[in-house]
């Protein structure tokens, strides 16, 4: 599924922030090439 993919992590301030997604996926051995936290107001 995500195996071998380069990951773009788009988090949300009121959900899971980008750095947390990146940390989780890097911990799984995946390469995160961009991470950001969007804010919907």
């Amino acid at each position, binding site marked *: *599924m995500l195996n071998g993919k*380069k990951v*773009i992590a*788009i*988090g949300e301030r*009121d959900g*899971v922030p980008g750095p*947390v997604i990146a940390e989780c*996926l890097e911990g799984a051995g995946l390469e995160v*090439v961009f991470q950001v936290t969007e804010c919907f107001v």
Partner: protein
Amino acid sequence: MNFENQGVIKRLADQYGPENLAVVLGNGEASGVEVFAETVTEGDPSYAGPLAGVSLKIPVYHVLEEDVMAVVPEAIREEKLQLSSLVIDVEPMRQVLQAAREKL
């Protein structure tokens, strides 16, 4: 999705090839998820951003989907995602994203 991030994704797709990319979202609510998915699969539905008319067909997942959570080491999952998984209802988002992935 804001135009700045659309531009970054377009550049990364040019650099790595869209077939080598996946998007993982962290949205707290289902509203907006469908637009995110459409933007990186079919193109910007508002026809205003850098991805207007650009069909990248990048698969989109939510970080709290079972299949994604399963690859995260248990210690990190418990520390970073457990609380979110209790308060965020991921199922409606999983259904939207699954439907979008099946169209790829």
